[in-house]
Structure formats: structure tokens, C-alpha cells
């Protein structure tokens, strides 16, 4: 497609290189330096999309992120929704299409890399326009550590859109000198294509750098596509510029309607004319630059429609010289056209009254309603805004610790003023940081501006179309109009925050960059209050949309959360284990043999452990080494039972409670020496229990001479379980007398295997004869394989966590956190035997004496046996009971408790469950009911120990 609207020369584009791209299925060309918007405009295309609710044609209305109109979806090289044509840098092979307000997420995984970098500076300057560059130069010259970030592809800010001169040279020459000077300072980080999108506490700011988006398919794979900069600055200077504000009138959404400043940007930066015949509608001085520049570039400027009663004299004279008609005291009331504006409707305007309109032919209508300082970051830093009557805009209204605003973001709208403000703010910032400015720091000079004429604050033109504001669009992305605001106010809403939520204005992709202040103004007008009383809605991060992929960075997939694996992991993988996540750990759940499902595998593994020998990788158990002369004192205070009486060489099971008397963890304790214990915790409780111990030692008992350290990763643990375990362990460690007399239950022995230290412990989590084998992870695979070899004659069977759970549940051993929920005492678990009556105090003891803990109706751990011998009760199922008449009580049916663990038992040849049931121990022998899939399954309440209640198997 040809580019009839490209100027013959000029702009920041590389005309020697032509790029091909596709939009809405049509081929286009452009140049490096173009955006998708500028390249489309060069071909004469304004409309890019249709609106979300009304399906109205929408076009490019601004040249950067404030554009509410030009929403596109990129398809190639990687699908990405909800981008703005004005911010997509053009590259060869780009395929995109317009969006009806809503994008479509990619259905292919994003193969690009995203990352994050932390960086610390003295001064963070946001924005590389005249104020930001000056501020960065002043700070850099003073030797400060500086970061300068700017969202555009090159530095310059507003200077890229104009014809200014600084220090007697074209402004962009000054810009490139400034950039070169900054590059010579080793402590300056200067990033373009980098949007500071959030400011948080204590000088923390997040910025998104788009590193390869502009390269399209040529992007090197090894370079991250986007990078989040996590910047910590002692002080922040925001020089983020200002957004031009439209004026609302009927059919102001028609393609071809554009902000006047944007037209200047397209002309000067991209070498593109927005049309052939322009009408310029303004309330302030700035749009005259657009009118005159376009005129010089060959656009016929049909009229400057000046809403003020008189045009500023020097502007009027310039227009007269150029032959441009100026219509003071006039407004644009509406537009004509279908998919592109063909006429502007112009009417006289005085004292708020609109006269009869007449149509002025044009193919582009440029609008300026003044400038809104981009106060987003200041506002995010909780800075309060102030309405400036002279500017007709909200400006920073107070000092904020650690953040200052410079240039047009602070309401300074002329170039010389912005340069001076940048230097002033930088010097104040340096002074607060006790950094002296450099002697050679010099203020760049720019021509003194002609004193501006006060702008007219005009939010919207009174609607003469008869539509009562229904086609006067305030938020183009949300299709929200003046009529919608009127409806909100009519419904009684007064707060601007409520109006926002009622109308959805400002909630779209652009977060109200053009519509927010307009809404404040129009709402104030409708309410008959000053706009300063209405205020603005809250500005929140992100300033512009940020992809979740960028926020996630490298923390995706297996890097999202640390994956902990045991030293045997590769062996488990090779053995075909099915894994489950236990906290961060990957644990084998079961080891299916060919053709087995989980149920079959678990029944087989359980049978092996109960009748022969099984082996488990229990390395994830938490292990805490507790050392010091007062180690036993600490453990006596934290465990419910007595630990200090434990003999060296012995093991004791213990329960820990919170001060409220509820169980928080359980496990075994090995006494290694008089002053040293190995505390075993649950897999999930390891970190929590170490924290718990340290908290008590540090905050309550700093006098105790004791230290606790995690040794979870320093020991692997292999329980060898079953009636043949003694044969296996005895065969592999012939120097250990494994007889019950020499090596009784709940004792441990040290030995070695070919010089490798090994610790054996008679601990059982299954009720079977069992030996736990402890060894350094370095020897895990070797020792495990030796155990398998030694066990081969007995059919040793590796088993996973599922079998471990079945075996322990058959014995009524609770899993803390599964069979308990923070409201369960040791007594509720039937573990009164583990609560010392001798110790004067321990954590939780006093709570046991509370009345509520004596209540016989407390939920207690019991076993459940489904009467049909078939149903595996879903864990979490509620338990109900029938009345004496065999009927359910009337609703709401009282719940007796719930199923906490439920499995199929090989040993019992039927399913069984553990449950917390009100007054459960009193109900043993009763039949209660559990609803499963809509039917009530009768279950018998039993004691919690269903296999070997006498404990006969423990010693083999």
C-alpha cells in the first residue's frame, strides 16, 4: 500500500529502509522509527478498531500511551492482545489487527524470556524530556548514582514532537549531546523504552524495559524480551510530562479526530501528515503550533476554532500571515462522516451559549482542551493533588518525602521553564542527599516564551445535537459518555470514585489518561460544584499495562517455587514413581508396576510392608539439631511430654502445642548426648518448628544456653518396614546386634557401612517392626541400593507416601494438619499419654485446664468403617446421625464432624477412615452416616487403631 501522507523529508525515521507489515489482512509499508500508528497514518488509515459496546469506528487519537482509540492485537511474531498502535514500534513482518475493545490471549506458550534486575541509585529520574534530562545531567555532574528511565524509543520527550532550539542548536542536537554526556558518567544508568510504572515505599520503583519487542522476529532469543527493573532510589524525580486533554463534543470519537499535539508528533517525529484538510479546535495557546506547523507542511488548515472570546494576539497574527482563518468565540459541536470525519460542525460560543452550527469540511479534526500534568507517580506516592485554576488542571499539591516533580508534570508548560525546573529540582534533591552540585553544572538556555494567554477551561461543549450527551464520548475505550455521567449523578452519586465505578470511566486499558480529569470536570459541572471539590480518582500502579509474563520474570514453571528433591530423586524417577507435592518437596506417591493403577499399587505396597518388607524414602522429614547445656530444658518446655528423662541412645515420641493447647506438630526426639538432641518434625512443619523454637529461645528464654539448627538436608532417612526388616538390616549391618533385646524399640545405634557413618533407629510409623536408616545424602543412593540388594530375598518393596499414609492411618497415627486443624488437643487425639502430668509447666499446659478443653462433646479422633465394606469416604465429608426414629433431623442437619483421612486397606480388606467426631470416643460402636454422592452411607464408629491394636507387631 502506498504512503501518500508521508512527508517528502524529515522525521526520526530511516527512510532508506522499508519495512513490510500486515494490518487487518492488508499489506503496508513503513520505516524503522515508525510506530504502527504512524505507518498506518502514512497510508491514510485512521480507523483501526471498533468500540467495545457500540461498535463505533475508532481511530488513532493520540501518539502515545494516552491514546484511547487505537487498540490492536499483534499476531506475529507472537500473539499479544490489547496494545496501542501508537506504542507498537514497527518491525518487518509485523502482523496485527484492530480490536473491538477486547483482546484474545495467546493460545501458545510464550517462549520468550523475561527477567528482573535490582538496582540502587541516589537519584532516579523518570522521563528524558527537557526537565528530566536537565535533572539527570545536574545529578550526574554532581557524581550521584543516577538512573534515567524513559518510555520512548529515544530520549527527548516533547522535544521529539517540535522544532525547539536549546543552547542555540536544534533541541534534538542538545538531546544527543546530553545523552552522550550521561553515557560518560560511569554511575549513570540510562534506559530508553523503559516505563516507570509504579512507585512504592521508601524510594522503591518498578520500571518495565521493553528490550526486544521492537525487533520482532529478529529479536535474539538469548536476550530477555522485557525486563522489570526493581529500582531503589534515595530520591525520585518524576519528569513525566503532560497529557493533552480533549474537549468533549458530539461524535468526538469519529476517526480523524485527534489531539492537536499528537498531530505535531506525527508530523515532526514520524514525517506523517494526519490529513489534507484540518480544523483545529482549541481552548489554549498550544494548538496554534500544530496549526502553523501543519500549514507549513502543506496541510490546508480550514480554521482554528478558538473557544476563547479572543485569540492570543501574536498567534492571531501568525495565523493571519499564514492565511489561516481563526474563529474566536467558537466551538466544535460535532462531526460528520462515517468511518472518518468529513466535516466539523462549528458554532459561535459565548457565555456558555452555543449558536447555530455550520459544517466545515475537513479530513482531520485536531483538538486541544489544555494539558494535564502526568501526576500518576506522584499520586501513587500518596501525594495530594491541587486544582490549578490558571491551568485548568490538577497539579502536585504538596511535598512528598523522597519524590519531587519537575517540568510539565508539575504544571510548567514552557521549554525554558522546564529546563530551569529540572535543574532546580535536581539541586534540591542533591541538597537533601547532602551531595554538592558540580561547579560546571550549567542551565541550558531556551528562548523566553511569549507570555501565554490564560486557557479557557472547557470540559465539554453543550450538546446541541439533541442526543443529550449520548454521543459525547468521555471514555472512548469504555464507550462512556456525558449521558452516562449524568445518569450517575442523577442516581445520587457524588464522589468521583463512585462515578468512576458506576460509569466504568477510567477502568480500561488506558486507565483514564484522557478521560479521568474530564470526568471530574463534567461531574463537577453537573453537580454545580467547583472541580477542586470533586478531585480526581486515585492513581494506582501500573501507569501503563504490564504483562504478567514480565512480572513473573524467571519465576515460572519449575522456578516459580523452589522444588526440593531428595538425594534419591533420580532413582525414584527411574523406578517410575508417581510424584506428589508435599510443600516444596517432590515425593514419590507410589511406584506402579506395569498395568497397575494407584489403588492396585498401594494395596501391593501395603501388603509388602505388613507381610514382608517395604522401604520408604523418608528424607523430607524435618530434622533439627538442638545443642547446648540447656537443650533438655528447652525441649521440656516445648513438648507436652518429658524429654529430659530420655536416656542417651533412646528415642521418644513427642507432641508440641501452641499456647492455646492445640497440637502444632509431632515427631520423635533422639537423644544424641546429654546436651544434644535430634528433633524430627513433620515434613511440612520443619521450618515452622525451627522458627517456633527460635522464637521462644530469643523472646522468652534468652538465658537458655541452647542453639537450634536445621539438618533436614544433612541426613537422608530410609525406614525399612515390615516383619522381615530385621533380616534386611541385620544382613547389611552385621556388626549391629539387631535382636529386640540388644536393640529395643525406640532406641538408636550408630554403625558404619564400608566406612560410611550410618545411624539406625527403631522407630515405626506403621506399627510394624521397622528400622530407620540415617546416612549423609552423599551416600544415599549407595546405601539405598545396598538395602534393596539385602532385601531382595525378602521381596523388599519400595513404597511411597500413599502407602505410608494408609499404614499410619490403620494404626490411628494422625497427620498433624490433615487429621488436625488447629482446634485439636492431644487429648482429642487420644494422646493423653503423651501429656506430662509431672512437669510444672510447658507451652500449652495451662490451656488444657480451661473449661472448653474439658468438654466431653469436643471432637475426638476415631475410626470409621463403612458398613457396606465398599465405599471409600471422600476426605472432608461431613458426618450426620439419624434420630431415634431413623430419620434425619430437620434441616439444618447438625454436623457431628468430618472425615480427615480415608483409604482402602489391604490388611482389613475394606475401606476405612479417620474422622474428628463430636464426643467420638463415646460413640464407638454407634452407626452414623456420611453423605456420599447424594446417598447416606452408614458407617460404624470404631477406635482409631484398626490394625494390631495390641501393638504385637512392633518388635517383629
Amino acid at each position, binding site marked *: 500500500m502506498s504512503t501518500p501522507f508521508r512527508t517528502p523529508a524529515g522525521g526520526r525515521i530511516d527512510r532508506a529502509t522499508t519495512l513490510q507489515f500486515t494490518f487487518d489482512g492488508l499489506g503496508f509499508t513503513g520505516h524503522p522509527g515508525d510506530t504502527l500508528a504512524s505507518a498506518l497514518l502514512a497510508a491514510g488509515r485512521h480507523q483501526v478498531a471498533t468500540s467495545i459496546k457500540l461498535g463505533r469506528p475508532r481511530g488513532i487519537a493520540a501518539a502515545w500511551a494516552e491514546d484511547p482509540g487505537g487498540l490492536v492485537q499483534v499476531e506475529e511474531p507472537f500473539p499479544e492482545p490489547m496494545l496501542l498502535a501508537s506504542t507498537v514500534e514497527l518491525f518487518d513482518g509485523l502482523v496485527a489487527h484492530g480490536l473491538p475493545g477486547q483482546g484474545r490471549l495467546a493460545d501458545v506458550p510464550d517462549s520468550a524470556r523475561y527477567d528482573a534486575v535490582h538496582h540502587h541509585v541516589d537519584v532516579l529520574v523518570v522521563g528524558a524530556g527537557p526537565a528530566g534530562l536537565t535533572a539527570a545531567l545536574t545529578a550526574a555532574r554532581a557524581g550521584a548514582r543516577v538512573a534515567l528511565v524513559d518510555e520512548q524509543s529515544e530520549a527527548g520527550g516533547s522535544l521529539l514532537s517540535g522544532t525547539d532550539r536549546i543552547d542555540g542548536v536544534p533541541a534534538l542536537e542538545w538531546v544527543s549531546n546530553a545523552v552522550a554526556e550521561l553515557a560518560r558518567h560511569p554511575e549513570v544508568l540510562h534506559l530508553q523504552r523503559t516505563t516507570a510504572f509504579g512507585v*512504592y*515505599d*521508601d524510594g*522503591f520503583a518498578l520500571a518495565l524495559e521493553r528490550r526486544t519487542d521492537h525487533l520482532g522476529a529478529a529479536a535474539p532469543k538469548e536476550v530477555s524480551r522485557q525486563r522489570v527493573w526493581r529500582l531503589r532510589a534515595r530520591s525520585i524525580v518524576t519528569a513525566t510530562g503532560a497529557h493533552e486533554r480533549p474537549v468533549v463534543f458530539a461524535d468526538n470519537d469519529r476517526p480523524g479526530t485527534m489531539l492537536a499535539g499528537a498531530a505535531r508528533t506525527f508530523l515532526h517525529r514520524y514525517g506523517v501528515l494526519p490529513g489534507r484538510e484540518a480544523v483545529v479546535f482549541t481552548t489554549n495557546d498550544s494548538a496554534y503550533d500544530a496549526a502553523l506547523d501543519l500549514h507549513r507542511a502543506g496541510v490546508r488548515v480550514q480554521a482554528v476554532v478558538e473557544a476563547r472570546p479572543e485569540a492570543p494576539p501574536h498567534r492571531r497574527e501568525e495565523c493571519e500571515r499564514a492565511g489561516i482563518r481563526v474563529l474566536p468565540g467558537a466551538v466544535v459541536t460535532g462531526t460528520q462522516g462515517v468511518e472518518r470525519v468529513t466535516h466539523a460542525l462549528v458554532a459561535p460560543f459565548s457565555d456558555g451559549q452555543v449558536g447555530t452550527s455550520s459544517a466545515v469540511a475537513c479530513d482531520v479534526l485536531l483538538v486541544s482542551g489544555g494539558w494535564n500534568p502526568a501526576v500518576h507517580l506522584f499520586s501513587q506516592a500518596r501525594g495530594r493533588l491541587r486544582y490549578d485554576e490558571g491551568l485548568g488542571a490538577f497539579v502536585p499539591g504538596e511535598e512528598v518525602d523522597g519524590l519531587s516533580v519537575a517540568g510539565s508534570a508539575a504544571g510548567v508548560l514552557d521549554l525554558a521553564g522546564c529546563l530551569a525546573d529540572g535543574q532546580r529540582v535536581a539541586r534540591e534533591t542533591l541538597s537533601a542527599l547532602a551531595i554538592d552540585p558540580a561547579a560546571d553544572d550549567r542551565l541550558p538556555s531556551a528562548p523566553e516564551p511569549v507570555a501565554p494567554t490564560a486557557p479557557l477551561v472547557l470540559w465539554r461543549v453543550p450538546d446541541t445535537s439533541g442526543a443529550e450527551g449520548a454521543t459525547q464520548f468521555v471514555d472512548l475505550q469504555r464507550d462512556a459518555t456525558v449521558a452516562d455521567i449524568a445518569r450517575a449523578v442523577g442516581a445520587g452519586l457524588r464522589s468521583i470514585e463512585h462515578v468512576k465505578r458506576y460509569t466504568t470511566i477510567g477502568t480500561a486499558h488506558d486507565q483514564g489518561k484522557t478521560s479521568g480529569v474530564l470526568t471530574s470536570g463534567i461531574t463537577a459541572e453537573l453537580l454545580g460544584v467547583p472541580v477542586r471539590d470533586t478531585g480526581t480518582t486515585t492513581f494506582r500502579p501500573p501507569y501503563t499495562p504490564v504483562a504478567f509474563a514480565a512480572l513473573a520474570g524467571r519465576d515460572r514453571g519449575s522456578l516459580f517455587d523452589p522444588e526440593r528433591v531428595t538425594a534419591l530423586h533420580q532413582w525414584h524417577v527411574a523406578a517410575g514413581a508417581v510424584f506428589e507435592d508435599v510443600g516444596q518437596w517432590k515425593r514419590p506417591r507410589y511406584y506402579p508396576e506395569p498395568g497397575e493403577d494407584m489403588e492396585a499399587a498401594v494395596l501391593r505396597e501395603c501388603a509388602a510392608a505388613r507381610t514382608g518388607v517395604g522401604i520408604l524414602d523418608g528424607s523430607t522429614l524435618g530434622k533439627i539439631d538442638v545443642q547446648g547445656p540447656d537443650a533438655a530444658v528447652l525441649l521440656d518446655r516445648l513438648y507436652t511430654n518429658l524429654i529430659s528423662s530420655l536416656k542417651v541412645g533412646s528415642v521418644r515420641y513427642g507432641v508440641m502445642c501452641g*499456647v*492455646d493447647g492445640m497440637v502444632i506438630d509431632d515427631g520423635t526426639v533422639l537423644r544424641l548426648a546429654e546436651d544434644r538432641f535430634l528433633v524430627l518434625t513433620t515434613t511440612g512443619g520443619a521450618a515452622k518448628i525451627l*522458627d517456633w523454637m*527460635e*522464637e521462644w529461645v*530469643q*523472646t*522468652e528464654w*534468652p538465658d537458655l544456653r541452647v542453639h537450634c539448627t536445621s539438618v533436614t538436608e544433612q541426613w537422608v532417612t530410609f525406614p525399612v518396614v515390615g516383619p522381615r526388616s530385621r533380616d534386611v538390616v541385620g544382613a547389611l549391618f552385621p556388626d549391629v546386634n539387631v535382636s529386640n533385646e540388644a536393640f529395643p524399640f525406640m532406641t538408636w545405634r550408630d554403625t558404619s557401612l564400608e566406612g560410611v557413618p550410618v545411624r539406625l533407629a527403631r522407630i515405626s510409623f506403621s506399627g510394624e517392626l521397622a528400622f530407620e536408616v540415617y546416612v549423609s545424602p552423599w551416600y544415599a543412593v549407595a546405601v539405598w541400593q545396598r538395602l534393596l540388594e539385602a532385601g531382595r530375598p525378602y521381596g523388599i518393596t519400595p513404597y511411597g507416601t500413599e502407602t505410608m499414609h494408609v499404614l499410619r492411618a490403620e494404626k490411628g497415627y494422625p497427620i498433624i494438619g490433615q487429621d488436625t486443624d488447629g482446634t485439636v488437643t492431644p487429648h482429642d487425639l487420644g494422646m493423653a499419654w503423651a501429656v506430662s502430668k509431672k512437669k*510444672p*509447666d510447658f507451652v500449652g*499446659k*495451662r*490451656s488444657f*485446664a*480451661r*473449661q472448653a478443653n474439658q468438654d466431653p462433646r469436643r471432637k475426638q479422633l476415631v475410626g470409621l468403617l463403612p458398613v457396606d465394606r465398599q465405599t471409600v469416604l471422600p476426605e472432608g465429608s461431613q458426618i450426620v446421625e439419624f434420630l431415634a426414629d431413623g430419620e434425619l433431623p430437620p434441616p439444618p442437619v447438625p454436623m457431628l464432624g468430618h472425615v480427615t483421612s480415608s483409604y482402602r486397606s489391604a490388611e482389613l480388606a475394606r475401606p476405612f477412615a479417620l474422622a474428628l467426631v463430636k464426643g467420638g470416643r463415646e460413640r464407638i460402636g454407634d452407626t452414623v452416616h456420611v453423605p456420599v454422592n447424594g446417598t447416606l452411607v452408614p458407617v460404624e464408629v470404631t477406635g482409631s487403631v484398626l490394625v494390631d491394636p495390641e501393638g504385637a507387631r512392633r518388635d517383629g
Partner: protein
Amino acid sequence: MQLIPCPWCGPREEAEFHYGGQAHVPYPDDPAALSDEEWAHYVFFRDNTKGRFAERWNHNAGCRRWFNAVRDTTTYRFESVYRLDHPKPVTP
């Protein structure tokens, strides 16, 4: 991301810290001597102060030390940090 001044490490990011609730609520000398109500006050009852509040903090992902701090619950600002064995600072 707020910076919290650990008395042992200096300012560190808030994500490294763990909140420990109201400070200066010592474990009772003799819990058995307390009534149920008095014990319940120790276990469950804490002030819900608007403004300056003495709190316990733990530099969990750093030096793992506990310390006390006076923080303004309306602004989140830390006004002072001090060792556990030091008294609550007198603030104006």
C-alpha cells in the same frame, strides 16, 4: 516495598521480615496461678492500636533475630527499633 530497619542488619526489604504481634506481652510467670480469664487474655487478647504501636518483628529471611519496633499503624512508618531486652522507648 517498605524498608524495615533491622537493629542487627540495617534496612532490609519488608519481605524478609515476619510480623510477631504486640510486644511486651511476656509469658506469665506462673500460668497455673491465673484464672481462665486471665490466661485467655494472655493467649488471645491483643491491643488493636491506631497509631504508635510496640510490636515484635523477626528478620526471618536475614539474621533470624527477633526485635521490637514502634510503628505507626496508620502510616506503616517505623519510628524506632530496639532490642528485646531494652525497654520500650519513650516517645513524645
